[in-house]
């Protein structure tokens, strides 16, 4: 028990825990749709595209989060536009923009003469240095995202499952698609401080992917994803505390371990499912 309580006496740890839980929750909720729509690659591209936004904000002296948000949103909309209108396959369009935007960020970064160390925090996350103001901002952004998803969850579900049918039924499928990608971009920007650009796609995808292995009901999948997201955030942070290792990466590793565990032992793809099917077959014979 002391292992749990001891770190809580430090304010920085409590803030980090709060931020990790919030990020885990929002990423799991949005990530459920991301996984079902197959947007993992786009998510990674958006997060890498945030880097030039951060660098530009630094050069211009603006807010990093605004810069990251603008870059992420522009990229998200750009990818959707290109894949809808262009002759390219989506993953080709993404591949081109992905590395190109990141290289732009590095290019701009190399022109900076002067103190630039804070920018690297965006690549790998800066969970332990979250200030109270940052945490407040994160909570507000998370609230906005969650409320938006709550308002449109039916429409998003319909459009994700059957865009043709949904469009014919009168839902504005194009608006929903663009709007959803803006939500993804904002979720990524909110999560940058926790795990950084490189790892944020894991926070989006892994908990939802794990949940998908456990259930065939959408609502349950989202709840399980949130459970995994929060659980891994808490467990990961504590492990990183006691084992003296990087926090963001530990959280992601816990999520990945959970996924593998469910994959190997779970009801649909793993041991539990195999045993059950064998039991059913034996009962039938």
């Amino acid at each position, binding site marked *: 028990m002391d292992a749990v309580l001891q770190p809580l006496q430090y304010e920085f740890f409590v803030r980090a825990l709060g931020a990790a839980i919030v990020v885990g929750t929002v990423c799991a909720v949005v990530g459920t749709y991301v996984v079902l729509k197959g947007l993992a690659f786009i998510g990674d591209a958006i997060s890498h595209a945030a880097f030039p936004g951060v660098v530009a904000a630094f050069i211009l002296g603006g807010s990093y989060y605004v810069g990251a948000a603008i870059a992420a949103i522009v990229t998200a909309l750009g990818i959707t536009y290109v894949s809808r209108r262009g002759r390219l396959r989506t993953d080709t369009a993404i591949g081109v923009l992905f590395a190109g935007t990141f290289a732009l960020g590095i290019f701009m970064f190399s022109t900076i003469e002067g103190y630039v160390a804070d920018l690297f925090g965006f690549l790998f996350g800066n969970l332990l240095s979250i200030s109270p103001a940052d945490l407040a901002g994160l909570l507000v952004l998370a609230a906005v995202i969650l409320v938006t998803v709550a308002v449109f969850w039916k429409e998003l579900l319909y459009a994700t*499952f059957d865009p043709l*049918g949904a469009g*014919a039924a009168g839902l504005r499928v194009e608006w929903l698609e663009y709007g959803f990608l803006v939500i993804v971009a904002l979720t990524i920007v909110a999560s940058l401080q926790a795990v950084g650009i490189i790892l944020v796609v894991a926070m989006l995808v892994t908990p939802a992917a794990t949940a998908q292995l456990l259930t065939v009901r959408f609502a349950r999948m989202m709840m399980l994803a949130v459970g995994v997201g929060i659980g891994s955030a808490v467990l990961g942070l504590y492990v990183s505390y006691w084992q003296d290792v990087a926090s963001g990466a530990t959280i992601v590793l816990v999520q990945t371990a959970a996924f593998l565990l469910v994959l190997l032992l779970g009801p649909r793809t793993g041991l539990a499912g195999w045993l059950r099917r064998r039991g059913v077959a034996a009962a039938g014979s």
Partner: protein
Amino acid sequence: MSGHEHTEQPMTTPPGTHSDPHDQPRRLPSERQLPRVDAAIDAGHAHAHADAWLADVTVGYGDRPAVEHVSLAVEAGSLLALVGPNGSGKSTILKLMAGLLRPWSGRVEVLGAEPGREARRIAYVPQAELVDWQFPVTVADVVMMGRYPRLGPLRRPGRDDRRAVTAAIEKVGMAAFAGRQIGALSGGQRRRVFLARALAAEPDLFLLDEPVTGVDATTQEDLMDILEGETRRGKTVVASTHDLACVAERFARVAFVNRTVIAHGPASLVLDADVLARAYAGHLLVVAGQAIPIDDAHHHDQEAPGETHFHDDLPPHRH
């Protein structure tokens, strides 16, 4: 399939002649005027009674037109089949009516408004193949989706919605499967689920893309019963299909489509050889009075007894 025709099917027949196509004097297709909607004649009447109305519409995908100069009026309350070979544009016409495609030229009106405006009153059932079957939704979830558009954002499904969903699921005979994930269903069962979704939406116009293609006979009968029931309640149903026998037996009206509307009239037109030859423009196999389209390569062979082969480069040979 009575011969009593209204002006929505004007033909250039000599006055006083009974307008049943089967009574028409036999003429070669190139000579005979096939029955079709003539938009110039009495378009107003056709328009006024139509739930779906296309006037001289051309549209396609990319650069290529899929349908050209399509004119069609679908009267309210009709049970209309769209038939034609693969790639003839049947799906395109359905999508035009559903508001999923904007015409390059011509006008489309659905339920008295621009397509897409009255989308809440329209149910479009696409060919089921385009859906991700691993999606974590059950039969009940999918059917409930039919209620979403009328709910709008913020509102959660309520008792009325659940009631409509249960009724729809029951109607299609899937009550025992309500909690099953859709990937665990057979082809016919999936078709029923999507029809249930359409029913749950309580629309005025049903647009169905190949609803009975590739399903077992029982499902086909059940689905047609339901569609017929809807038209009896005054709803309009437009469905595309390959199955000419089904059209002849179950549908009230038919429109032949091959990049444009070749013919439009009562379902018995399906048995009219000239119409079939024009529409299918390729091989048509007539076996024991039933015409079956063949979409394979052109070939010259000897007709077996009881078969009539139609070729598009030879005048039809009738006995």
